[in-house]
């Protein structure tokens, strides 16, 4: 499926207005489109923030509230630990953590609904929603974990383990997610948009490095397409990596020092896009299946948690009434 795309791209290339190639020539028209694409390291920042928040909450509970000694106290006598009053699941801190965790877990749930409702509307900033989704999906389980006081009993433990699986699968989903080319707002690129993007990158490279310089690029891309579609980057393939480095060196030499940075960026994106387009069908199929795993567990989780919350409320374990 990759080859026709390539040939199509190549065939369309001459139709583009050819600007005189010269070192240091500005690539302004193309840069605008590139800015609107989701960056390579997308969602890394929100995961770091989530990790910091999770560590902070963990330190607070384990150290400041003496949670470490409480959680390591044998269950039989834990009820008489000094921290039991506040850290037990129905205690001031324990229950608050549970409520907060549940609320955080509801946020991705609403994200799911919002995504389904607004699927066709490109105006929504899906990436921002996903960042919130990831934050809640990391911090929420941490809070819930402390809410359980590491005591996993009854059916509600099924909800907990479901949550754990959902959270872990979220990391897989995030990996697959970023392998599907999207705009910077998180909207998937259509095939035409993808073609246009790869073509414009080629143009940019051609503008910068000259026509004959693309021969090496074509060889690299041919090598990528020749390989079976991979969900991994493939950049770990050493011969391929070496040939990419060679191409980069040649193009940089041609483009000159001033344009080498943007040239390298364009080259990286072009190769990455080609690689992902090559695996795109497989990735999408896998992502689809991932949803089948990720989502039902969410439903199971919420169903049991509803029961858990219902029983708790029924028996009088109302938040802020300790």
């Amino acid at each position: 499926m990759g080859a026709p795309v390539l040939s199509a791209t190549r065939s369309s290339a001459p139709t583009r207005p050819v600007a005189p190639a010269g070192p240091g020539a500005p690539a302004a028209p193309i840069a605008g489109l590139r800015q609107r694409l989701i960056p390579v390291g997308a969602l890394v920042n929100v995961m770091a923030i989530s990790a910091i928040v999770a560590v902070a909450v963990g330190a607070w509970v384990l150290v400041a509230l003496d949670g470490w000694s409480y959680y390591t106290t044998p269950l039989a006598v834990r009820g008489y630990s000094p921290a039991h009053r506040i850290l037990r699941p129905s205690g001031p801190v324990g229950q608050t953590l549970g409520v907060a965790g549940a609320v955080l877990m509801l946020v991705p749930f609403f994200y799911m609904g919002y995504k389904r409702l607004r699927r066709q509307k490109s105006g929504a900033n899906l990436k921002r929603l996903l960042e919130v989704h990831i934050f809640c999906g990391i911090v929420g389980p941490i809070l819930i974990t402390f809410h359980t006081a590491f005591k996993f009993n009854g059916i509600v433990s099924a909800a907990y383990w479901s949550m754990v699986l959902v959270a872990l699968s979220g990391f897989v989903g995030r990996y697959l997610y970023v392998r599907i080319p999207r705009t910077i707002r998180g909207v998937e690129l259509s095939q035409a948009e993808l073609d246009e993007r790869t073509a414009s990158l080629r143009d940019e490279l051609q503008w910068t490095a000259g026509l004959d310089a693309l021969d090496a690029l074509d060889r690299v891309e041919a090598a990528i397409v020749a390989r079976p579609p991979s969900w991994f980057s493939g950049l770990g393939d050493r011969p391929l990596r070496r040939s990419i480095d060679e191409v980069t060196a040649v193009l940089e030499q041609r483009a000159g020092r001033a344009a080498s940075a943007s040239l390298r960026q364009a080259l990286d994106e072009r190769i990455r896009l080609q690689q992902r387009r090559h695996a795109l069908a497989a990735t999408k199929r896998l992502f689809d299946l991932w949803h089948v795993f990720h989502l039902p567990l969410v439903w199971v989780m919420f169903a049991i948690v509803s029961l858990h919350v219902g029983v708790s409320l029924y028996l009088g374990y109302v938040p802020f009434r300790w």
Partner: protein
Amino acid sequence: MVTGWTSRSWRLPAVVAGLLLGSLAFARTADARQLGALVSPGALSQPHATLEGIRNCEKCHEAGNRVTGAKCLSCHQPIADRIRARRGVHRTVAAGDCVTCHAEHQGATGELRPFDLSQFDHGRDAGYPLDGRHAPLAAKCASCHKTRSYLGVSTACASCHQDVHKGTLGATCETCHTTRTAFKEVRQGFDHSKAAFKLDGAHERVACESCHKNGQFKGVAFATCAACHRDPHTPKAAEACATCHTTATWRTRRFDHATTKFALAGKHRTVACAGCHVRPALQVTPRYDTCASCHTDPHKGAFKQDCKACHNEQSFAKAPFDHTATAFPLTGRHAPAACTACHTSLARVAQRTGRTTAPATVDFGGLKKDCASCHDDVHRANLGAACESCHTTERFAVTTYTHRTPTSFFAEAHTPATCVSCHQRTGPAAVPDLVRARTSPPPVTAAAVSTNTATPVRGSLAGTVFTAASRACATCHADVHLGQVAATCESCHAVATPKFGVTSAFNHARTTFALNGKHAGVECRKCHTSQAGTFPAGAGTAVRLTGIATTCATCHADAHLGQLGARCESCHTDQTFKLSAYTHKNPAQRAFFVGPHTTAACSACHTPATGAFAAGTGTAVRYAVPTDCTACHRDVHHGTLGPKCADCHRLDRRARLAIPNALDGRRDAR
């Protein structure tokens, strides 16, 4: 849009529905207990295990109200009672506050009752203090609390202890037993004074088992001592033990000896019974009418058994013997003397045996009354045996002695002398050896004046031999005149004279220089001065009594410095040194001593002058005076009429100048 269960839109609801249906199916097949486990936050502890199950939640939990104490206490009724009564561990908790302390759903092994033994005070928290021997049980709850509940254990002793008395002593063990002592040690707990037989004296120290044999605590016979004690007396003393014995101690007899014919007094009270009563005590009655039945007579019958004359029951050795009844009453210093001081046979025995108590044999006879039988005669018999003439029993040392004869000798100057002034011990002081009277006079010392007529004794006279000393003066007195006087002392001195002064017996007229006139009143020492020099008895210093020249110049200085020669008596007498009258006798000057010259005072012509005199240069009244007029009279004519005053002036009896006739007319004309 693809239809069918594989379509994407159906997939999710189908999976969810399947999971829920599976859960429901599990719920249908599971029993209530398993269902409960689904919603339970943890297994219940073992004691609450029967409350597991979904239908039991509300046995503890109240809808909308968590776990209420009322639900807990509806089962734990005894606890509810104690909370209400504010007793025990739960006395301070609120009725609904169970979960604060009791945590559930902590697993089957979950501890429902946190129990910090270090904080638990069984007395305070359970109302039954574990003290004394119970104290170690505070850490061994299960020793008494046999069931899971800590309640329901009675504080009755029998709930833990076996009644070894088999109910014969009732259930109030604490009457006898305490937790402070061993179970068998009941003395501290049991007050035997509440029993019919009260314990006192030695009975208090007897082990319980000694009387309560075989655990018999009731019905022990105690009416008679013989119930427990064996009667050692022969014949048996019947039941009158208390007549002699008390419970204080078996050895202490309480027998009142006064009820017998021999009341015990003094030292007899301290004698052990067996001292008199040889066993068997009650069988033999000792003779009590004579001392000798118990005491041996150390005097070997010398006093005919009349012991009471000297001894009494207070002290055998120190009998209050009245010596006045004897031939030798003890007076003065004799009174406090120890018996053995005189009765030396007693002393010798005591010395030999080292005993101060009465010896086996004591001889009080054979002593004489004379002093020498006890006292050594330090005077070696030279004063005779009549010691009492000087000594008294009040004080052995001689305090006063009055020489009776001759009276004249022991008078005045001799009275202040001490005995040893005349009577002196010779030889080493410590040895009372032969002492003679003084043979040489002691150094002349000033004797203290005493008004006592009796001679005070100074210093120890021990060893002094008072032989009759010679009354010759030289025996005691040294010759202060160094041989100048050949006559006896009595010629001038007399004892009766105060301060040994020279008496009227001495008459200076018998010497070569009778003292007349003014000389009679002159003190001796004015002429007889103390001089150092050679005297008949040798060189020395003495008042010179002889060999003094009788010339005036020996004593008197020549005021005339040799102008008038050595024959003082030609002008002076011993009646008065002053010259009362003098008549110029020189015939050559007879013409001069007429008229006024005869009545002029001596000093008118003889005036003191300083210059050269016959005896040397000095100041003296000059007696060689010229008779020319100008020697005395002033020339009023200033030499104009020449030196022949007599030409005009003459001396007549009217003591006026006789003016020549030439002047008469002039005087008349005027």
